[in-house]
């Protein structure tokens, strides 16, 4: 059985990976947004996520105690050593795909960080309070756009529905609890993920209803992110992201 610091290390790393990988996706929107204003809005969200990744990587590095930096964790691991949820790495697709991913993820994050505020680990609790402010904004942004797209034109309605349907099978994983989770839940340090599911689903259902969209019924759920088993997309992202760090291992930037 891993000791408590190892568990917290893994936990912090997972939160950081979710933020880091998703921020990378959002940063790909830069100069590609549907309206200049929206380009800036997506970048703001990306910057929030990068900041979040950095603080949780820092904490992970500190817990690990091997003198690593946040950059080492962000840039110097292989595909199988990233523990983000699969949803975070899904490609941007069209704007509806990105908004659907933002909605499904940010509503989850909202309930997750609400709960993490009560962690007995002071750092987790404090970081959760700070993160929650950003998440509320991300959630509003995603929900408002979901409604506009769902209740906009026929074309946008179709695209929004398609996006939600396509991503649905990557949402089950968000509510899993493995040994790390279970051990931390038992000590009052981590979030009881499975208990968030119904809150999340109700919330999503309400947004979709306002958007005149259907809650998907497909129930097969993908899994693997927390074990480092990813989609094909992640490897390509890392190849690009880590290029300079890999090509010039001795260089400082």
């Amino acid at each position, binding site marked *: 059985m891993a000791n408590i610091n190892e568990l917290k290390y893994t936990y912090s790393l997972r939160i950081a990976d979710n933020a880091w990988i998703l921020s990378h996706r959002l940063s790909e929107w830069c100069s590609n947004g549907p309206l200049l204003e929206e380009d800036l809005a997506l970048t703001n969200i990306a910057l929030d996520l990068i900041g979040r990744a950095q603080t949780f990587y820092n904490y992970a590095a500190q817990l690990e105690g091997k003198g690593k930096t946040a950059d080492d964790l962000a840039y110097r691991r292989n595909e199988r050593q990233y523990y983000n949820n699969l949803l975070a790495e899904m490609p941007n697709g069209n704007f509806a795909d990105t908004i659907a991913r933002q909605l499904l993820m940010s509503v989850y994050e909202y309930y997750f960080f609400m709960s993490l505020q009560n962690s007995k680990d002071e750092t987790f609790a404090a970081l959760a309070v700070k993160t929650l402010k950003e998440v509320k904004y991300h959630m509003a942004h995603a929900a408002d756009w979901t409604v506009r797209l769902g209740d906009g034109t026929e074309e946008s309605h179709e695209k929004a529905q398609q996006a939600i349907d396509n991503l649905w099978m990557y949402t089950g994983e968000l509510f899993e609890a493995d040994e790390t989770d279970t051990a931390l839940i038992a000590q009052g340090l981590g979030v009881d993920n499975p208990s968030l599911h119904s809150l999340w689903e109700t919330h999503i259902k309400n947004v979709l209803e306002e958007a005149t969209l259907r809650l998907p019924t497909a129930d097969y759920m993908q899994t693997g992110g927390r074990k480092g088993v990813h989609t094909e997309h992640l490897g390509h992202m890392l190849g690009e992201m880590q290029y300079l760090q890999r090509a010039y291992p001795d260089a400082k*930037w």
Partner: protein
Amino acid sequence: MSINTAPAIDDARLSKFEESVQRGDAVEPRDWMPEAYRRHLIRQISQHAHSEVIGMQPEGNWITRAPSIRAKQILLAKIQDEGGHGLYLYSAAETLGISREEMIEQLQTGKAKYSNIFNYPTLTWADIGAIGWLVDGAAIVNQVSLQRTSYGPYSRAMVRICKEESFHQRQGYEIMATMMKGTPEQREMAQDAMNRWWWPSLMMFGPHDSDSPHSSDAFRWKIKRHSNDELRTKFIDKTVQQAEVIGLTIPDPELKWNEATGHYDHGEINWEEFYRVIQGNGQCNKQRIAHHKKAHNDGAWVRAAAEAYKVKQAVKNN
């Protein structure tokens, strides 16, 4: 505007306008202004806006390859600022009676230009340093001088932009400085970027004063406050010293300090290259516009959805 006004009244207005500009008063959107003044401003401000927006692309080319968390954060925030600058400037131009839709169309059809510098490619990470340091460095010299331009909305946009620009040049210089302190490969990369970006940066100030087509009106109306050559010299003077401090060589064997003028003299700029790139034969001209069109077209259904939603809500609330 004022198409039906009698010529005599226009003459009186014109002299009143010229006097007030000479006094240093700002011109505001609803004030009477000569059509040529309006046209000049629309051309200049929209070109400036397009430059900010197209300028997001060469730097955006490295966001997903930024080598550290900090570098990625800074670059993303910097490019976002440029988008914001484009937006402030589009708004300033809109006060002159042109819509953003029209301006975008002019950009995409080649009727409106953007700064030539963004038709050069960003080949290595050092190019991100070189752009921030040299390109933003050159832009800021120009923009500081435009803070006192005669058209109020343009001048206010420039004040805001200059405030935000202040970190852009620094972050670029920091990238260059860090690389120059790094491995031999990094130093080589930095010098290579310097070699490729130096001359195009000097070209950003435009042709020599003697060959500058739009200048005289622009000066009389205080749209432009300093000449191309004045601004270019200012840029060179402050940049040479910064290059020396970090050990970069300026790729101009004729560059030397001139005691008499108190400025640097520089070698001749390759104007043939300048005009070749302006005319569309830079490496990236087609690529930049194609990228802009793609984003614009891909986003059309999103904007249409937002419009449709607005209309539906209005019907519901009535």
